[in-house]
């Protein structure tokens, strides 16, 4: 460890014990084409919490998540999962990507997609047994998609596709769930179904982290927030960290006056 790494943006000490934190970032910097989109960010996810990652467009929310998962390689900084390096702990993490990242004309049915979430169990050659199918169906039932098991995924609406992705994540039986804009472009029924499942996961003691952009639902959905605009702008329980001042600092001039007014009125 170099001396430079000792001083991170929030002045966190390096020798801290992170074994309780499902996910911790220290001094994480990610750049696309030589320009940092996430700069020296510290984040500590509390176990059993439901955290919303909040920030304006282009603030690096999705990038932060992808770097935390090793999907993009950070330029600097360190990621720990229950205190361990990411590579060892991958099987305890489930990730639900943005819907746009997949070719929906791919010839696969809903049930097959969910079974892909059980690859660690199935491996290369093990046959898919009735108990595997039963578990996959159980996950589909949790998101209300049990009647669609044999549909080709391209025939589903956007919201239904998102629920199938969530079912695939559930099939992993993970302890930490990371979701990238799970509510973007979905119908109200899907939004309600997804938030119901996420809250149930939290109540089971799992940890949920979701990139979120709808400020009006933050208080209803999450118990913690992480505010980001390229740098860490705030972190903590909704009641203390999701304040008008913090939002103003995060969004700058981009936060519409209407919303600020609504927040202060409510």
């Amino acid at each position, binding site marked *: 460890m170099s001396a430079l790494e000792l001083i991170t943006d929030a002045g966190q000490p390096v020798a801290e014990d992170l074994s309780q934190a499902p996910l911790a970032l220290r001094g994480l910097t990610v750049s696309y084409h030589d320009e940092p989109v996430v700069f020296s960010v510290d984040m500590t996810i509390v176990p059993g919490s439901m955290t919303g990652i909040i920030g304006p467009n282009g603030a690096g929310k999705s990038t932060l998540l992808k770097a935390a*998962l*090793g*999907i993009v390689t950070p330029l600097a900084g360190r990621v720990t999962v229950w205190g361990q390096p990411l590579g060892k702990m*991958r*099987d305890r*993490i*489930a*990730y639900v*990507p943005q819907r746009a*990242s*997949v*070719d929906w004309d*791919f*010839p*696969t*049915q809903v049930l*097959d*997609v969910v079974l*892909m*979430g059980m*690859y*660690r169990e*199935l*491996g*290369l*050659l093990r046959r898919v047994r009735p108990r595997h199918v039963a578990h996959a169906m159980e996950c589909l039932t949790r998101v209300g998609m049990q009647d669609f098991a044999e549909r*080709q995924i391209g025939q589903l609406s956007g919201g239904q596709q998102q629920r199938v992705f969530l079912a*695939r994540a559930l099939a*992993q039986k993970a302890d930490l769930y990371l979701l990238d804009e799970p509510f973007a472009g979905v*119908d*109200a*029924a899907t939004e309600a179904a997804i938030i119901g499942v996420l809250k149930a996961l939290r109540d089971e003691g799992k940890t949920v982290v979701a990139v979120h952009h709808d400020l009006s639902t933050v208080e209803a959905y999450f118990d913690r927030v992480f505010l980001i605009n390229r740098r860490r702008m705030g972190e903590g329980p909704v009641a203390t960290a999701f304040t008008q001042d913090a939002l103003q600092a995060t969004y700058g001039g981009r936060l519409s006056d209407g919303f600020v007014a609504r927040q202060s009125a409510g």
Partner: protein
Amino acid sequence: MLADALFLQLGYNAALVALGATALGIAAGAVGAFLYLRKRSLVSDAISHATLPGLALAFIVMVLLGSDGRFLPGLLAGSALSAWLGLWLVSWMSHRTRLAEDAAIGAVLSVFFGFGIVLLTVIQSLPAGRQAGLEGFLLGSTAGMLRSDALTIAAGGLVVLALTYALRRPLLMGAFDPVHARMMGVATRQVDLMLMTLVMAVTVVGLKVVGLILIVALLIIPAVAARFWSDQAERVVLISGALGGLSGYTGAALSATAPDLPTGPIIVLVAFGLFATSLLVAPGRGLLATALRHRQVQQRVHLRQGLLALAHGQPIYEGLTRRILRRQGLTRPDGVATRDGRAAASRALRDENRWQALRRTEHLSELATRDDGLTRIEDVLTSDQIATLDATLAPQKGGA
């Protein structure tokens, strides 16, 4: 004659060729399906063209070492080496420079092929080169196929198939959602590399039968044809392998019916025939089925709109709507509704009103999103729910 050919009655050599071509077709079809699902079909074009310089160099080296330049395993090893180099260049250019993969493929394909052709010309001028017969590897030449050649091809095909089967899950996961696959512990890069190696193996094995220019057809055509028949990836792979094998077998048999018919090109033509058939008649995604479905929906839309117009006493201007109503006996030739027509019109109107009512019903309005103008409300609601809806409709009717 054709029947004789199809039942392998045309002699020993024809039977050997058919065996080799079938094994190659199955392997190429199965591997090609994964390549197609991974959207990397064109890479096979670069790989196959990149075999030529290696083939020619292997010949030259073997002649210089004083052995027979036509030693097949030596030629195949040389072609595999240069295919590797071509593949590595494509992947290096598309990852490390800002060139897109298609540009990299084009560059590698043409440069390697051009260099290979130059080497072939050089070989022609060598004393040992005149009988080299290396041109046979361009379009395949099965005339002098030996028992050992056929068995080599069949064994190669089997190994490729076994590896493809073992890797089917990571291959499909990487093709569908590479990011998720990586999260699940699939080493997507290595899996991709393995797929390319399998493609290379098929190409090298197929040099003798269809040649390096046409092997691409066997890797791509069965896969795209198979896609018409299924929406399940594993079935697409199976069907693709079957279509590839069928093309290989039928093509080899056909080419044996007359002297000097080129086997490779005929195999490709058979594969194309299977593709064209699939494109036309496959249920679901085929052109005919699509056109038929489109027509049925169009007719139902016109019928529904016509009935609603009748119910509201509006004039119908569209010729198609009028024809459909008349053909079904719902209107007389002068456009006036028959008794059946009036009944159907009032049923359509009732359905429409129920949908309207459904949209206003608070706890059921979610279901109203399934209204597309054609779905009958009976398919969405139970009869009890419809009765409840009708209860809300009744006073409005009375008021009107």
